[in-house]
C-alpha cells in the first residue's frame, strides 16, 4: 500500500517534471535566438583544418572538452581493469566454439576493420570520426573474443595500459607542444592543423577501441579485497 502510494507519488512528480520541462522547451522555442553560433562557426571553418563542422568543433574549437572526455573514458577503463583478476582478463567460459559465430567472424572482421578505417577517414568532411571508428573497432574485438580468438594482449599488463593511454598521451603532447611554442594550450599551428588532427584521430580511435574492449572483456571479477579501515577488530 505504502509502496503503491510512493510509486504513484513519484509518478505524479515525474509527470509534473515532464510538463514543466515541456512548457519551458515550448517557451524557449518561441523566443528568438540571440546569438547564432553556426554562422560564427562557418566563418571560422577555413582555419580549423577540417571540412566537417562537427569534427572541427570536437577536435579544434572545443578540443579541451574532447581531451577531458578521453580522460573520462580512460578513468572508466582504469576502474574496469582495477577490478579484474590481475593475471589475465581472459575468461575461458566466454570462449565459445560456435561454428556459426566462427563463420560470421571470418566474414565480418575484415569488413569491420575496413569500415572503421573508412569512418575515421570520413570524419574529415562528413559524419564519422574517431568515436564511431573506435566503437566499430571495439565491436570487432568483441566479436573476435566471442568467437574464441585469443587476445593475449588484453591483460592488465604494461601493454594494455599503454594502449589505454596512447591516444590520450598523443593528444596531450600535441596540446603541450603548442603551449611550448608560445601559443595557448591546445592551439594548433594553422598550417599543421590538418595533420595533427588526423594523427590525433587515428590514435584516439585505437585508444577508444582499447578502452571499450578492455571494459567488455574484463570479465572475471577479482576476489581479493581490502578490509575496511579499522573494521577488522
Amino acid at each position: 500500500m505504502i509502496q503503491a502510494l510512493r510509486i504513484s507519488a513519484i509518478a505524479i512528480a515525474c509527470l509534473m517534471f515532464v510538463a514543466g520541462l515541456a512548457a519551458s522547451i515550448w517557451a524557449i522555442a518561441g523566443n528568438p535566438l540571440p546569438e547564432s553560433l553556426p554562422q560564427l562557426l562557418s566563418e571560422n571553418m577555413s582555419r580549423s583544418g577540417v571540412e566537417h563542422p562537427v569534427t572541427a568543433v570536437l577536435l579544434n574549437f572545443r578540443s579541451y572538452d574532447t581531451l577531458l572526455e578521453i580522460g573520462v573514458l580512460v578513468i572508466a577503463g582504469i576502474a574496469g581493469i582495477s577490478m579484474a583478476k590481475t593475471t589475465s582478463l581472459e575468461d575461458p567460459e566466454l570462449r565459445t566454439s560456435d561454428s556459426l559465430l566462427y563463420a560470421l567472424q571470418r566474414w565480418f572482421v575484415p569488413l569491420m576493420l575496413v569500415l572503421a578505417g573508412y569512418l575515421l577517414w570520413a570524419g574529415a568532411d562528413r559524419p564519422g570520426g574517431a568515436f564511431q571508428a573506435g566503437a566499430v573497432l571495439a565491436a570487432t574485438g568483441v566479436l573476435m573474443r566471442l568467437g574464441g580468438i585469443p587476445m593475449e594482449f588484453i591483460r592488465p599488463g604494461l601493454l594494455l595500459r599503454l594502449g589505454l593511454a596512447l591516444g590520450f598521451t598523443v593528444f596531450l603532447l600535441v596540446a603541450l607542444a603548442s603551449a611550448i611554442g608560445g601559443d595557448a594550450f591546445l592551439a594548433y599551428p594553422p598550417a599543421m592543423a590538418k595533420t595533427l588532427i588526423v594523427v590525433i584521430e587515428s590514435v584516439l580511435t585505437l585508444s577508444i577501441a582499447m578502452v571499450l574492449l578492455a571494459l567488455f572483456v574484463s570479465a572475471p571479477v577479482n576476489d581479493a579485497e581490502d578490509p575496511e579501515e579499522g573494521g577488522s577488530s
Partner: protein
Amino acid sequence: MTLWLMAGLLFTPLAWAVLTLLTDFSRGRLVSWAGILVQVLVSLGLWLAVARDGGFYYGLGGWDAPLGIELRVDGLAVTFVLLTAVVAGACGLHAGAYIDPDKPWHRYFWPLFWFLWSGLNAVWLGGDLFNLYVGLELISLSAVGLVALGGQAGALRASLRYLLAALLGSLAYLLGVALIYGQFGTLSIAGVATWLSDHPVPSGSGMALALMIAGLALKTALFPLHRWLPPAHGIAKSPVSALLSALVVKASFYIAARLWLELGQPIGSLAAAQLIGLLGSAAVVWGSWLACRQQRLKQVVAYSSVAQIGYLFLLFPLTFSVSETVSLQAQQGMTLQVISHALAKAAMFLAAGNLILSVGSNRVDALAGVSRFLPFSLFSFGLAGVSLMSLPPSGGFAAKWLLLQASLGSGQWWWVLVLLAGGLLSAAYIFRIYRASFLESSGTDQFFHPSRSLEVIPLILAMLALGLGLASDQVLTVMALPFEGEGAP
C-alpha cells in the same frame, strides 16, 4: 610567463595521470611526489601572477568564446587552484605513506588521483557550461573509482550510490545546459550574463537555472539530497575521504555559486533563494544532529561535512536582492568557509585515519584514553575541530563572522540563528570526540604511533585552517582583484 604557467597547470595533472598509469604504486609514488611539487609551484606561481597583474580570460586552443572554450582566471579561481594544490598535495603525500603498496590494485590510485586533480582545476577555471559538465564528470568518475578501489561489498554499495547520485545530478545539470543553449545560443557563462544585463529575461530560462542548480545541489549533497555522501565519504580510505570532503563536493557547489552570482539576480526569485537557504539551514541542523549519533569516527566526520555544506548555501539568499556590501560580505564569507572547511576537513579525515590506524578500531568509543599518549593526530583533529566549530581565530570563524554581518546587514536575521545554532551543534559532536579521548579507562594501553610523516601532514593542514582567520584579509584582497575583461592574452 603566465601562458606557460597556465599550460603547466592544465598539463601536469593529466600527464602525471598517464605516467603513473604506466608504473606500479611505489614508483608511482615517487613520480607523484615530483608531480605534486611541480603542481604546487605552478599553482603558486599563477596565484602570484594573478595577485600582481589581475585576472584574465584564457582561450583554449586560441579560440575565444563563444566559439571556443574560455577559462576564467580570476582571483577566486586561482585561490581555489592553490587551495587544491595544497590540500590534494597533502592528501597525495599522506596517501603515499598510508596506502599499502603491495596490493596490486593500488597502482591505480595514482592515475585516478591525478585525473581527479585535473578535473578540479578544470572546474575552478571553467567558464563554459558544457566544459564544466565534462570537468564534473571527470571528478565524479575518478572519485567513484577511488572509493571503490579494492573495496568490499560495503564500499561498492557506497560507491554505487555515489555514482548514481552523481550521474543523476550531472544529467539534471546537462539538461539545464541544453535549455540555456537553446535559449541563448551560447555556452559561455559570461556571454549569457552579458546578454541578460541589457535584455529582458526570456521565459523558460528559470527552469534551466533551476535544473542546473538542483543537479549541482545533488552532487554537493545538499539536504535532503545528502544521503549518498556519508557512506561514500565514511568508507573510503582516509586520504580519499579527505579529498572527497575537502574538494570534490566544493567543485559542484562552486559552479552553482558562480551560476547564481552571474545569473541569479535576473533569472532567480526571492522564493527560490530563501528555499535554498532554508535547505542549507536544515542541512546544518540535521547533519550535525546525525553526526552526534554516529558510532564510527569517520561517519561523524562525514556527517559533519553534510552540515558544513549547509552553511555554503546561505550564499544564495544572502546575495539575492541585497546591497553591494552585503553581497560582497556573503561572497567573502562563502569563500572563506570553502577554504577553511577544505583545510579543516582534510586535516580531520587524515587525522581520523591515523587514529584508526593507532587504536585499530573505527569506533568512537575506542578512543577512550588515547589523549594520554598525546598523539599528534588527536591534536590535529582537535585543531581542525576548532575551525569546524567556527571558534576564533580559525578560518571558519572568519567565515561565520562575515556571514553574520551579511545576515544582519540584509535584515535576514533568521540566518543568524542558524549560524549560531550550527556552531553549537558542531561543538556537540566535536566535543563528543574530545570527551571520548579524555576518558580514563584501564583497558587502553595498546597504542601504535604512526610514522611522523603521517602525523605531520594533518597537523599542518589544521594549523593552516586555524591560522586562516588571522590572514583572512590578505586572502580576501587577492580575490577581490580587478578583472580585465579582455579576451585571451
